[in-house]
């Protein structure tokens, strides 16, 4: 059997809040195959975003291991983790988190500043990523000149531009109306099916979860159910 792309093994995560330790994840195990589109669901405070942060290399577990593509990322230093993220993971957030002073093109180009690509090559690749999300004609617009759905598309283009194998999406449709949310989810589905991206998406929305190939339910820091569609 092939090794899973994501292997979270006996992971616990505890945050310190003042003098109190707050356990968020407890000895959690989950494996995700390459090419999966997983919807991570559960009530607020169940640890969804924490798990997403651990898998995306934004945080480190208090115990256990996180292996992505055969690499133990929980053992990497902060600098190594930053480099790893730039090559392996694309991030999509609920509030897009675009830089307001940069055009859509420049926002998408940001991850490529960390590569050795020339200026023209960066521009070419950023335009290609914008074309994938259907916004090539909006390359010169700043975020405030775009709709919410368009901003999220730019954020997805930014996540895609360095061609990572894994996309982690934290409530990507949480700030959008139903129709726009469906467009974004359709786009994620295309990226999963046609471009082979493995997608891990945190959502509260059962309709959003319908676009995923698997749903994973978390409650009180523990995996309570895995349901294939």
């Amino acid at each position, binding site marked *: 059997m092939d090794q899973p792309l994501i292997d979270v093994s006996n992971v616990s995560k505890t945050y310190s809040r003042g003098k109190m330790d707050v356990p968020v994840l407890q000895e959690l195990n989950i494996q995700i195959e390459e090419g999966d589109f997983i919807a991570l669901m559960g009530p607020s405070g169940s640890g969804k975003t924490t798990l997403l*942060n651990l898998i*995306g290399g*934004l*945080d480190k577990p208090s115990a256990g291991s996180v292996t992505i593509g055969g690499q133990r990322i929980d053992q990497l230093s*902060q*600098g190594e983790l*930053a*480099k*790893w*993220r*730039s*090559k392996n993971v694309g*991030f999509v*957030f*609920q*509030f897009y*988190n675009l*830089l*307001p*002073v*940069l055009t859509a093109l*420049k926002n998408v180009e*940001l*991850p490529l*500043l*960390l590569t050795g690509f020339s200026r023209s090559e960066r521009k070419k690749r950023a335009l290609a990523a914008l074309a994938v999300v259907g916004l090539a004609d909006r390359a010169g617009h700043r975020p405030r000149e775009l709709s919410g759905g368009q901003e999220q598309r730019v954020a997805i283009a*930014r996540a895609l531009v360095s061609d990572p194998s894994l996309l982690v999406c*934290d409530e990507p449709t949480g700030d959008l109306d139903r129709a726009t949310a469906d467009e974004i989810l359709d786009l994620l589905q295309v990226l999963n099916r046609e471009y082979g991206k493995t997608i891990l998406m945190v959502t509260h929305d059962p309709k959003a979860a319908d676009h995923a190939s698997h749903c994973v339910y978390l409650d009180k820091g523990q995996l309570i159910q895995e349901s294939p569609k």
Partner: protein
Amino acid sequence: MRYFGLIWAALYRKPVRSFLTLASLFVAFLLFGLLQSVSVAFSEGPDLDGVDRLIIAPKYSIIDQLPLNYSRQILQVKGVEVLSHQTWFGGTFRNGRSFFPRFPIQPETFMDIYPELVLPQDQRQAFINTRTGVIIGRSLAQKFNLKVGDKLPLTATIWENKDKGPWEFDLVGIYDIPGEEVSDAQLFINYNYFDEYRLRGTGLVGKFIVRIDNPDRAAEVALEIDTLFANSSNETKTSTEKAYNQMFANQVGDIGFIMTSILSAVFFTILLLTGNTMAQGIRERIPELAILKTLGFSNVSVLLIVMSESILMVLIGCVPGLFAASAILPGLAVSVSFLAGVEMSAFVFAQGMVLAVLLGLIVGTPPALRALRLNIVDALGEHQ
């Protein structure tokens, strides 16, 4: 350079705030350029220091005078080779808008003691022979577009002439001081004509200058000269030229201190203002910086980006400020007589640039350190 677009774009985030900060920086560096240029000009080293030259000045005040007949006694002191003298003329030229030092001197002996002053032999001879003759340095001749043969009228401020009218001189020579980085912006007048034609003070000089045969005996000779005139109504204080000029430098050093104090106050205010702007700017951009880190920018990269923003902002205010100062100074020199000849040197410009980088580093350090220590999860969590 790869991140330059990112750094540059940050200045546009709050255009009004950036403009106001840049305007303050512009004014601060304009002031720096003006005041520092004046300060440097006033604290520049003595013009011509000779190790074998002694200055014999009135003991108690530089505005006192010494009798010319002291020269006979001074020349008899063992070790004194040549004696000359110099007197402060004052006066105004062209409606008082242009200031430069003017001294009646005894041409032959003065030029013997100061071989640094080089002028053609015929002009030298003309200066010696022409009672109304004056010589000026080349920089002044160029500045006022003067040439040999021109009439040079000066209005008296200290020494009225017997006709109580303007002094009329003939420009007979233009001298250079080759190989020396000293000012040649002075005018020398033939003492004999000056002394005969002045209304009062005949037979007095401002100070004597002597060349001695052995610099190692300078202290001994100085003591002997001062002893000659001790307890007289015109006591003397003899010192080496370097020490004498240093005394002046110390006096104008006070001007430098005043200038430095003003600039310190200005830059302390700017430091607080710019520091606050930077801190506020970074505080507002915490989620953006967290995103940069999320995308894979290292902690050090983010620190350098913030630091570069700070330095860039200060430099953008600094460079036009310094250029404006250098453009304004010549105009000021025309309208304010004591600023004549003051220009902004490359040294002052370089000082301004170094100060700007230092200011940028100081105001950039706290927000840059904050950006360095920024935790992605916490920063994004606050934003979500």
